[in-house]
């Protein structure tokens, strides 16, 4: 099947193909970690695929009070879109509907970058003219502008603008070929846990795992994407199937990150974590999804990710 292997698990000598995307990060705080997480999970809901959801989003990290601007528990959220304007639209909608509405929540920029996205400056209109701006220095002495919008529990405080980064990448991925659903899910879960631990990287699908990997286009006119038939176990034996006879299930993880290095590090962590336990859970092989290399300029070759300490990113 493959000349490559890691921890005794065959690794297909292929690459994951990923794309340049617009990415940003925000920090959401609340009086308790519980309510900060409620706000964050609400905002990152329905954000699995930029094609269908308008954005891909996920929770990057839980933050201690010492790590947040206002000294309260917080969560760092990453949000990705095709381009800055689409990202801005999704950001304003999601903060407006999920963060503004959540009791006790405040919202801050979570990353520095070259592209300014007006956030509080747009949401302030909810304040119906009663909102006020306030410019205060942050911990580093840099002046930051906030909007204070009167709401029924006091005020919603939101930073005037956030930043989109250059160099964000979406679509890093790994596919795990297994024998049974339950065992393959355990492998994928281990990969998700390791991949998520990389700062600046998120896995936007449910629990970090997607079972409906897709290919570009489809036989039905107008379909932008359709099922990745080459990896569907029920379509084994047909021309074009990429699965060995013993494969009964394929699960995929998809990774977005603020940097190409983040995607590479996250894929590497996931690959190693999956193969470490894969032998005990019937993992047949690990591969990656691509479109022939012609659509995305970032190519993450699994061959390069086998070395644990490799730091040079692909793409």
């Amino acid at each position, binding site marked *: 099947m493959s000349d490559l292997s890691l921890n005794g698990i065959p690794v297909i000598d292929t690459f994951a193909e990923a794309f340049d995307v617009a990415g940003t990060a925000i920090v959401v*705080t609340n009086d308790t970690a519980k309510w900060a997480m409620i706000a964050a999970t609400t905002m990152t809901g329905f954000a699995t695929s930029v094609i269908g959801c308008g954005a891909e989003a996920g929770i990057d990290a839980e933050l201690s009070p010492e790590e947040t*601007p*206002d*000294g*309260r528990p917080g969560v760092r959220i990453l949000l990705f879109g095709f381009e800055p304007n689409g990202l801005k639209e999704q950001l304003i909608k999601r903060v407006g509907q999920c963060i503004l509405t959540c009791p006790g929540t*405040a919202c801050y920029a979570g990353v520095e970058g070259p592209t300014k996205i007006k956030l509080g400056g747009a949401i302030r209109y909810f304040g119906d003219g*009663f909102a*006020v*701006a*306030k*410019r*205060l*220095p942050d*911990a580093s*002495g840099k002046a930051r502008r*906030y909007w*204070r919008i009167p709401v029924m529990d*006091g*005020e919603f*405080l939101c930073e005037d603008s956030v930043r989109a980064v250059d160099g964000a990448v979406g679509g890093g991925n790994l596919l795990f070929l297994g024998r049974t659903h339950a065992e393959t899910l355990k492998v994928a879960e281990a990969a998700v846990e390791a991949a998520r631990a990389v700062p600046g990287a998120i896995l936007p699908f449910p629990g970090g795992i997607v079972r409906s990997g897709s290919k570009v286009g489809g036989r039905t006119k107008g379909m932008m994407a359709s099922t990745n038939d080459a990896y569907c176990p029920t379509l084994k034996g047909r021309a074009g199937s990429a699965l060995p006879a013993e494969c009964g299930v394929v699960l995929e993880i998809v990774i977005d990150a603020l940097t190409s290095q983040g995607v590479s590090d996250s894929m590497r962590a996931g690959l190693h974590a999956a193969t470490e336990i894969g032998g005990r859970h019937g993992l047949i092989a690990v591969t990656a999804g691509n479109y022939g290399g012609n659509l995305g300029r970032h190519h993450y070759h699994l061959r390069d990710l086998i070395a644990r300490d490799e730091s040079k990113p692909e793409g």
Partner: protein
Amino acid sequence: MSTLTLRAAPPERLDFLNITPLALKGLSPGEAERLEVGTTRTGVRLGDCFSVSLDGSDTLTIEGGHERLDRVGASLSEGTIRVTGDVGQRLGAGMAGGVLTVTGNAGPYAASGATGGTITIAGDAGDHAGGAVYAAKVGLDGATLIIRGTAGAHLGDRMRRGTILAGRAGAFAGARMIAGTLAALAVGDHPGLGMRRGTLLLGAHGRMAETFVETGAHDLVFLRLLAKALRGLSPEHADLLAKPLRRYSGDLATIAKGEIWVAA
């Protein structure tokens, strides 16, 4: 560090608008001594009143201040000016950046129109510190003004942006405020009279105008950010935010987007 040492009391008011570390950089002591600082037809020059020692650095010390030294640091945009002693009116007026420190007292209109940098007065300040001069649209406009002692009346009058911290202040502190933040341990009558926006944080105050309405006690996230911002400038003022606070909204005679927080 470049140093100007006062030799004798100035014979007239002196204008230090153009005396900054940047302006002195590249000048010989002789050239610096010939800089005009007088305000009458007598043509007083810098060397007439000061001994000049230059080293081209971005720090200037004025040893021996005097209440006749006007507009000290007014054109400062970078670097540091430190005055040992008193200064006259319009200290740092229009200043754009840098650090300006006075160990003594300052006259009226300190930091008026200052858009950046930090101005610290260890002693007292005259009336209208951080306030607008006649016909000016705004007072303090983005800089940070710290008065360790007592400020006169009309502190922060028509200030538009920035932060003022004062130990005590006279009447009409923050009057006609357009925006910004003013904190004082105690102020006189009518704080914030006619203010449109902005925040006053007061330990105590005199009579408050009837056009302010109490909104109660609020635990707002903004106060946490303000406490963090003030902590590095003056722990004493930051500590005001650790106490129970009552909030007043006003001035209802204007657009009423201002607020006065008062220690309960």
